[in-house]
Each structure stands twice: as C-alpha cells, then as structure tokens.
C-alpha cells in the first residue's frame, strides 16, 4: 500500500467552517452589520442593569422635553424617559424578530424537507398550500392573524412567525429537491438507512446554509412587521415600550417633539440594515462558487 500512502500525503485545504468565517471576516459591510446587530443585542440584554429609569415611570412635570444631559433622548408625552424606553423596546423588537423567525423555521423547514423528500401527493398538498399563502402579502397576513389571535406581543410573534412559514417551506423544498438527487442520498438508502435518518443526517445539514441566510434576512422583515403591528396596537401593549408603538404615539407630536419619532425610527433602520448586511455577507460567504 505504498502508493496509497504517497497519495494521501498531500496537504488538505482548510475545513469549510473556517473558510466561511474567513470570507465573512473579509466582507466589511457584513462585519459592520454584524457589529450593529451584536451591539443592539448586548444593549437589550443589559437593560435591567443599565442605570436608566423605569421605562413606564411617568412625570407630568417633564412632558415632551428635548434631549438634554438629564434625558439624553428627551421625554415623551407623559414624561417617560425615551432612552430607557428605547433600551427596553429593543428587547421587544429583537425578541419579536428572532422568536418569530424561529417559529417560522420550526414549522417551515420540516414541512419543506418532507415535501421535497417524499414528493408525490404529500408534496402536491404542501406546495399548493404554500403557493396559496405566498399569494397574500406578508404584512397583511401577519396583521390578519394578529387581529384574529388578539393583541399581545406573544400573539404578534406567533402571527409574524406563521406568516413567514411559507417562505421557509418553499426555500427548503427547493433545496431538498436538488440535494435529493445527489448520490450520497441514494447511497444512504443503499446502506440501509431509514427515511428519518436520511432526512436528519443527509438532507437537513446540506440544505441549511441558504436557510440560515434567509433566516437572517427574515429577522429584519419580522422586526419591521412587529413595529407595524405595535404601531397598529396589535403588538406590545401599553405601557410596555416597543419601537413600533413608540412611533405610533410620536406620530401625534411630530411638529412639537420630532425626537420622539426620530429615535425609534433610526433604531429600526439600523437593526434592519444590520441584519440585511449580515445576511448578504453570509450568503456570499456560504456560496462555494465564490472564492
């Protein structure tokens, strides 16, 4: 077996995981996006220990104050500190973004895998239902579901999550259809594996990268959707803060206190842009064709 030993002696390229990270690191806009996202997550996590006032504490002597040393971002129409409400509102927005996407993936990815893997009638039923749901605009669907479930942040997350399910079904199904034809899937059957193990060990890991990219981009959409639902009063309920409901209130005072709308608007813009940049970067980094 000397031939074999010389054959195997050549150097192997770096594992895929490191390559992906290396490519992501070189992508400046993705790193900026990642930094913004991480910064907001840290701020949201630190909310209880930051030296800020209670976000629901009202002070009738200090209504609609402009930004100052005492209130960095000013106060709102009933004298609550906007900085504090922004920090606590970040929790609602980010949680809504992440949890609703997790819900969408938990429902959509398995359905997509099942539809693509088994094909036939199973696929027909799932794919047609997906097409029907995709025909409805995402936000309209989310609003309808949230209205049906009743106004609360939890219900808003469920509504947004369910509205995003068809996106994940369709993406996953398409990926599965292409992975399914690979020899290693047939090879898995040839060694005697059952459907469950083939789906969990062969299909899912190989369709995951594009799903991850889609998830990052969908978080951005979900944050906007949560803001929209809260703006309409279907999301976070008063007096708890969320960026969307803060915008909704600020709309009434645009001429007297424009900063009330500026901060939540800017925060939504930055987080959404952060997730989008990160998602685009991930897509490029995970694409094996680009080196």
């Amino acid at each position, binding site marked *: *077996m000397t*031939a*074999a*030993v010389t*054959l*195997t002696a*050549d150097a*192997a*390229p770096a*594992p*895929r995981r490191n390559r992906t990270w290396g490519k992501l690191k070189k992508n400046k806009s993705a790193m900026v996006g990642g930094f913004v996202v991480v910064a907001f997550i840290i701020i949201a996590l630190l909310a209880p220990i930051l030296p800020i006032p209670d976000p629901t504490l009202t002070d009738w002597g200090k209504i609609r104050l402009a930004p100052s040393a005492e209130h960095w971002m000013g106060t709102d129409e009933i004298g609550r500190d906007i900085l504090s409400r922004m920090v606590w509102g970040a929790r609602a927005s980010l949680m809504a973004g992440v949890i609703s996407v997790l819900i969408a993936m938990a429902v959509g990815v398995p359905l997509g895998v099942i539809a693509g893997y088994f094909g036939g009638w199973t696929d027909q039923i799932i794919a047609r239902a997906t097409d029907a749901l995709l025909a409805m605009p995402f936000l309209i669907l989310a609003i309808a579901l949230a209205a049906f479930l009743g106004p609360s942040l939890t219900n808003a997350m469920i509504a947004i999550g369910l509205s995003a399910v068809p996106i994940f079904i369709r993406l996953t199904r398409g990926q599965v259809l292409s992975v399914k034809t*690979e*020899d*290693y899937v*047939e*090879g*898995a*059957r*040839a*060694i*005697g*594996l*059952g459907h469950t*193990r083939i789906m969990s*060990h*062969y299909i899912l*890991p*190989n369709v995951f990268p594009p799903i991850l990219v889609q998830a990052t981009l969908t978080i951005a959409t979900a944050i906007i959707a949560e803001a929209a639902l809260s703006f309409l009063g279907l999301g976070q309920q008063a007096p708890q803060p969320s960026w969307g409901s803060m915008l909704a209130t600020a709309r009434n005072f645009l001429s007297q206190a424009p900063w009330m709308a500026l901060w939540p608007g800017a925060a939504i813009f930055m987080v959404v842009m952060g997730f989008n940049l990160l998602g685009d970067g991930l897509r490029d980094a995970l694409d094996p064709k680009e080196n």
Partner: protein
Amino acid sequence: MTDPILTTKDLHKRFITGSGLVGASTTIHAVNGVSLSVNKGETFAIVGESGCGKSTLARLLLRLLDPTEGEVVYDGQDLTKLPAGEMRKLRSQMQFIFQDPFSSLNPRMTVEAIVGEPLLIHTKLNRKERREKVADLLRKVGLRPDYADRYPHEFSGGQRQRICVARALASGPKLLIGDEPVSALDVSVQAQIVNLLEDLKDDFGLTLIIIAHDLSVIRHMADRVAVMYLGEVVELATTEELFQSPRHPYTRALLTAIPVPMPGGRGPMAALGGDIPSPANPPSGCKFHTRCPHATDICKTTHPALDTAGAHQTACHHWQDLPAMGADAVATAPRSAATEARFALYREAASKAANQ
C-alpha cells in the same frame, strides 16, 4: 461455481416521463427482460454503451429502484417482495459503490461518521469499538486512520473512492456492486482502485458485480461478462471466451473499438453506423438490427431470445452463420489511401528500428 448468490428472472423496468394533463407520456423501457445469475465468489461484469440500462439494472439488483416486473432473488429470498424493514436489514449484506466519488459522500459528515455509519445501524458495537473498526477499515483500503476526523472535501478522487469502499465494507457485505467504480478517476488511480477491489474481494470473500464501459478494466477483473444493448442482455460468457470468440455482432463491434497503444496494432475498425436508438421508441425485432451489418428480414420482425442453454449465451438469429458470412470482412470500413500510406511508412520505420 454454480452456486448463485443473486438471480434475476425476466426483470423489467419502465420509466414513464412527461405525463401531464396535456401531451402524451413516453414510456422508456430501460431494462427489458433481463435474466441472469451471479455465482458466489465471482466477479461479474455488465458492459454496454451509456444509456443501455446498465446503471438501472445495478439499482434494480439492490432494489434501490423497484422493478416494474420480474424478480431478484438473493440467497433464496425475492427482494422485490421483501417488506421495507426486512430489506433494510438485508442491505448490510449487499453494498453499492458509485461512479462519482465527489457526489457519493455526504460533505457534512466526517470520514469516521461516514465509514462508521453502517456499523452504527447494523451492529451493536459501542462508540470505541466502532472507532477501532473504522481505523481498521481505513487501513485496509490504504488510508491513514488519523484521517478519520476529516471531511470528504479534503481528499482527492482516488482517496474518496477508497473511503466509499471502506464504507461499503463496514457492514461485512457478501455482495458488492460497483456502478462504474473507476471511470471517474485518473487512469493511474483507476489501476490502484481496481487492484484494491481485487485484493479485498479475496480477503473478504466477496462477490463483485462491476458495471462498466471500459473493456480493458473488465478483461482484467471479471470472470464472466454480460453485454447489454438497449436494456437487454445480448451476450453472456466467460471473459476469456467473450474476448477470444465473441458471437454477437454488437460484442464484436465493441471489442474492435478497444484502443491499442500502438499505431497499426489494432485491426481495422468495425463500422458501427448510427447512434443507439432511443429506448423510448426501440426498434422492432432484434433491437440491434438498425445498426447491425448482418441484419436480415427475420431480424426486423422477430426478437431473438437469449439462448440460455449453455455457458456462452447469445441473443442473435445469425451468430452461427456470421463467420460464414465473412463477418469481419463485412464489418470493416476501408481505411483511406492516406492512412494506409502512413501505416506503410510507420511499419518500414519500425522494422528498420527492430533490425538495428
């Protein structure tokens, strides 16, 4: 040598394509009435042009595809009637090696997980025992055991095919089917894998079924050869007999197409005109009659059955008459004057060189 491990009886596989609401569907008859039997311990080869149904046949033999008709008997059990659970258990005894080692390994699994997976599902070995067995298998196929933690993309084509072989051997199979196991590899690596398969066949007491279109590989490895044309076996014989005295005109044409690494060393090419007909619309009678230089009226109307009486089986109306018909002469396309002149120059130079 008459102890069959795998027998097929009148095996058919039809694929129906293009069946929609509008437009007629086409039926592709990929495998058409194949009956053969593979003996324990032999190397059985199946050859044919691409599109002749040999890969479909390989998948039918392991029931990776369900046949439309016919049966596949392995060790006394008809695989086509076996329930799914039983079939999965039986798969430990029969393994498959794919043509393309770049798409036949899961890129998200380490070599250890890939090679150890059959052990995980077919044996009760614990993690440590599996690790040892994997290291052992890697050594047997000529890979270093410390490669176990790497991923498939870190290996070359030949190394990957060795990983595939190790995985196929893990469950202790009795039957190994290779679907063109070396044709995607470099020629030098091909030889290594062929030798590896032969060594392992002796070590493990395997029965090998090799699908190929490369006749030199087959001549080297196989004990018996079945030649396929458009989903049918047209000739089946021991390798020696097939190469020495081919009977079917298609086999003759295939054999004369083997390249020889010396100018003029090969006999004149047999002219095999035209392309392989579409399996969706196969010719009547003998399916080879559209390209056969000896076809007569009976070939166009009557389908010749494979004469299964002897060891050398042929499906041709005229094989006994072919030598009398001057088969080789008729099948020969004349070389052009320019080529003949070049060959004359070459022979002259060669004889001068030999005399010095």
